[in-house]
């Protein structure tokens, strides 16, 4: 069962990576990176399920928060403005 979950999530990651590599425009890559960040949170939840340790969810929370900040920075870059105005 766990193997099945892991294979499905890996397939999602490969779809995202396809879009990161082949995306025609910069916003496409940004979307794929954002989605990849959320999928990794799902991965860490599965890891917590396998091992029974709570610190995998710490990793998940920090990944979700930092990927949010990264996405905001990329979005501000796409708006064509400096990071600090």
């Amino acid at each position, binding site marked *: 069962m766990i193997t099945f979950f892991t294979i499905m999530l890996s397939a*999602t990651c490969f779809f995202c990576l396809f879009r990161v590599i082949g995306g025609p425009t910069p916003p496409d890559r940004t979307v794929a990176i954002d989605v990849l960040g959320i999928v990794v949170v799902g991965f860490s939840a599965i890891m917590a399920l396998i091992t029974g340790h709570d610190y995998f969810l710490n990793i998940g*929370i920090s990944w979700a928060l930092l990927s949010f900040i990264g996405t905001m920075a990329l979005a501000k870059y796409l708006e064509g403005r400096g990071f600090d105005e």
Partner: protein
Amino acid sequence: MSELSTAAAVFISIGVAFDLIGGLGLIRLPDIYNRLQAATKCVTLGTCFILIGVLIQFGFTSIGVKAILCLAFILMTSPTAAHAISKGSHDFGIKLWEGSVVDKLAEDKSKE
């Protein structure tokens, strides 16, 4: 690992399926806005289902509570990130797909 309960397995399976559909949408749909539609909605809901499955499996222990917190953070941040990307790409000058019907934002921008 303790034995996976049926309810948790069902929830996680639904979540993983939604994740996969989101990934497929990311590949198949034609332009950036449609991809955002599929990707953010399906993947967010899928990850929420996975976390709810973890919560059901472990109950209100430290793992379950962290799963709730993670769920709340994802539900707050993911739509905001989607909105920021879509606004950014509209400002970046990405046109809508040619099959699109209407673009009120571009009309209003050109009026200013």
